């Protein structure tokens, strides 16, 4: 099981420890009393159920050779806006550099830290280690709030389609990006997340993003793999962020070219 594979120390061999291997599939999909897949657990991005910097392929959420992911189909004006950004602009625009929440769907797509899911009969509670963020998603199929104000995680409603939990999200704060390189979005963004647990040790997340103001057509991610851990989440508050100041000074130095 994952916990056993995670034992180890930084033993001084000049590499991060522990070294982990991809988890086996594990047993069948755990299910709740009402028969739905139970998505509960602590999940690490990738296949190892933990960190393994010695094996980047095991750490990534998908293998582009197996499940290629298309580029975001940006409208020309949006692509031009991104192209005009300097390297420092990219940094200063990123939620991570500013210690802002990744939001939806960044908490899955752009998150190198574990996330804990707690599933109850009518809710899915997501606890993200990164910045100690959380969201509560109603899974009883209730409609969206009427004219919701934008928030980082958006206004979500969810329902089950067979063994897939479908989360429909609108009203997402425009400060969030959908990738690390400037894919911003509009107030019209509509996010459809799909979560499955095909076996005990794996969670699969796939998202479709519609944004008629920014994209030429909807974009669907590759199926992203997350793997089961038996660790506790760590406390992670962003209390000593020195990055913004650093990048501002670099911007003043050379215009932010990043050279």
């Amino acid at each position, binding site marked *: 099981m994952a916990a056993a594979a995670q034992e180890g120390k930084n033993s001084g061999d000049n590499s991060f420890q522990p070294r982990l291997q991809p988890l086996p599939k594990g047993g069948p999909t755990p299910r709740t009393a009402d028969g739905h897949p139970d998505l509960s657990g602590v999940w690490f991005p990738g296949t190892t159920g933990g960190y393994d910097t010695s094996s980047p392929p095991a750490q990534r959420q998908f293998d*582009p050779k197996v499940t290629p992911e298309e580029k975001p189909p940006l409208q020309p004006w949006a692509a031009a806006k991104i192209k005009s950004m300097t390297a420092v602009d990219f940094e200063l625009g990123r939620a991570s550099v500013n210690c802002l929440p990744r939001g939806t769907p960044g908490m899955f797509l752009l998150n190198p830290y574990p996330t804990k899911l707690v599933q109850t009969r009518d809710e899915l509670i997501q606890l993200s280690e990164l910045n100690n963020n959380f969201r509560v998603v109603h899974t009883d199929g209730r409609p969206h709030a009427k004219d919701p104000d934008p928030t980082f995680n958006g206004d979500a409603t969810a329902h089950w389609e067979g063994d897939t939990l479908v989360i429909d999200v609108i009203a997402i704060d425009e400060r969030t990006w959908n990738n690390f390189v400037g894919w911003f979005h509009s107030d019209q963004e509509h996010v459809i997340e799909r979560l499955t647990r095909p076996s005990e040790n794996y969670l699969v997340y796939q998202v479709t993003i519609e944004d008629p103001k920014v994209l030429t057509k909807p974009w669907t991610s590759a199926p992203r793999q997350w793997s089961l851990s038996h660790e506790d989440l760590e406390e992670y508050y962003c209390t000593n962020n020195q990055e913004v100041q650093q990048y501002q000074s670099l911007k003043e130095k050379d215009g932010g070219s990043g050279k």
Partner: protein
Amino acid sequence: MSLRNILLIGVLLGAAPAFAHHTFSVEYDASKCSDMTGTLTKVDWENPHVYFYVDLKDSDNQVSSWSFEAVSVAFLKRSGIQKQDFLDNMGKVVTVRACLGKSASAKRAAAETLKMADGRTVRVGSDYEHGQN
């Protein structure tokens, strides 16, 4: 190849920056990495990065304090490094393998490894010299 293209290729390959919350190459220079030896004076055991401070002597024997950026608390703890490891080495001579910041005036570098006073070397940052971010 521009930085933007490198970043885009990285994302397309599913190799988005995994361990840092920002892009290393914008702030630091992976071609200017070296072993830096001095006295450990302080650690900020916080997020998003742990920072530790070392008094280094320059060529004129002038001592100045340098700050070294490590990965986050969670990454260090999960790789077996505790705050106590730093406290145990406070006031002792350590060697940091680190890459210089691009701002010449800042005495600041990104740490890759830290050799403690007892000779143990631990990884505290990615292997920037070989392309990790």
